[in-house]
């Protein structure tokens, strides 16, 4: 099986996700970048699951998908909350507390 391609793809996705998280100002974009990272993980898990011939990888991936959904829901809720209070979802502007 061509494991490496999948792993490289996953690594690329993961890095993209990281870049997105660190670089995008828009909170929603950041959330999406995180989804990218999680999906990179899913690819990894599926690949390894197949490699080792076990379903654990797929199970794990399913759980991640489910949890990610919940997470995004919460995340969006918080983003909305902020938008409501500030009419702005630029994460860079959130620095009331520091030092």
């Amino acid at each position, binding site marked *: 099986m061509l494991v490496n391609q999948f792993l490289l793809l996953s690594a690329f996705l993961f890095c993209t996700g990281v870049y997105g998280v660190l670089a995008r100002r828009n909170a929603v974009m950041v959330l999406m970048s995180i989804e990218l990272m999680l999906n990179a993980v899913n690819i990894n898990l599926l*690949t390894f699951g197949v490699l*080792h011939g076990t379903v*654990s990888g797929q199970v794990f991936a399913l*759980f991640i998908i489910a949890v990610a959904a919940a*997470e995004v829901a919460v*995340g969006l809720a918080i983003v909305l*909350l902020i938008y409501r209070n500030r009419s702005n979802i630029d994460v860079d502007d959130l620095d009331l*507390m*520091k030092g």
Partner: protein
Amino acid sequence: MELAMLAFERPAIDWHAFAPELVLLAVGSILTLIDIVYNERARRVMPALAAVGLLATLVPVLTLAVDGADRSMFDGAFVVDDMALTLKALFLISGFVVVLLSVDYIRDGDYHENEYYSLLLASLLGMVLIASSRDLITMFIALELLSIPAYMLAAWRKGGATSNEAGLKYYLMGVFASAIMLYGMSLIFGVSGSTQFDAIRVALDTGGDSAPMVTLGILFVLVGFGFKVSAVPFHTWAPDVYEGSPTPITAFLAVAAKAAGFVALLQLVFVAFSGRYDVVEPFFWIMAALTMTVGNLMALRQTNIVRMLAYSGVAQGGFMLAPFAVAGQATDSAIQAIVTYLIIYAFMNLGAFAVVLAVAKKTRSGEISSYAGLFSYAPGLAVAMTVFMAALAGIPPAGGWVAKLLVWRALLDASSVQGTVLAVVVAFNAVLAFSYYAKVLREMWMSDAPDGDTSPVSVSGTLTLALGLTVLATLAFGVFPQLAARFGDFSASFAL
């Protein structure tokens, strides 16, 4: 893939072993239901129900403890042993105290009260679960279960800009760290082919080929939990979130959530990664030294008490991380040190937050300077705070000294140079730490009340109960350290 593999067989379920989680789940569900049915009318009973529910959850924990036998389910993915029970009890009691702290705060503020307790219980369920998880998936689920409600709770003060900010920061950092951790888990799964810790341990022990991948995997996973326990440099969220969140939640995050992170680390380091101490030990050495030093140095400059406690929590986390640095060389003492530290830390830190809550009610301020003259108008609170500060600083007879002692003991037990050097670093930090705890003491005892305002502080019954509980526990642990230390003595659990 053969179909036989996919054929579902209901695994044997030991209901007794599962009872604490089930009870907690039931209580949580009931609370949610009541909220749905009775809505606002239920506000008054919610905290009481939550508290009772937590205490009820303690019952199966106790029966399991009395029973004494180690139980294992789902091919070893869920384990109930002494340590798991001890930690579950710790989480539950911490949760109970947090509920006590919350009652007035949540009632008096502009908060959704019913959901608050449901979410709190949900988060606690995650914690209780994490204590038993011996499997990557279980652990992940449990972790998310405790985290996601916590994100919401952090942002619970919906109208407050700081609370919003805290929520978002916590959320983003948490999810980001989770993603990194998951990536690490996937790598480890890739090498070992299993999600179960025992299998991972065996696989890592023998899997010499893919060493870099294992190392990377371990690193990523540990970083994920390093975030949870706010180890430097993954701590940056903590001060902001602590400051912004509602104070009872801050207490909850600082104690229960952090403890959960440590519990996970315990399982991972001593079970899953116990074949790779060559990676784990230096990693934690660096983390521990950095965490305590940076935490302390930053705490020195703080003027806000919550923020100071946040950094103090970071530094305390550093002390708790230190025994991991000798995880392989002095396994038993290290586990003992960490667990004992967790127990004592929970009480002293919760206590400190209880005082903060009580004082803030009068002063409406989080500044350390607002504690000026506290001793003159609220001697009880001042003495209690003194006990907690002394405990955090590790001054006998308040409990903290036992925790530090055990950390030192573990580090020296390793009889290695690294261990000894880290012990000295801990010693220096213990001294450094006192200087900012002393700042609070100084304000309380040695300064005059601002504006000569010496009207007494009214402390509600629940808060008094919480204070009494924590003061008593903190002192008892200090005078009879065996009380706490025996719960940390799990030499049998990890005799692998």
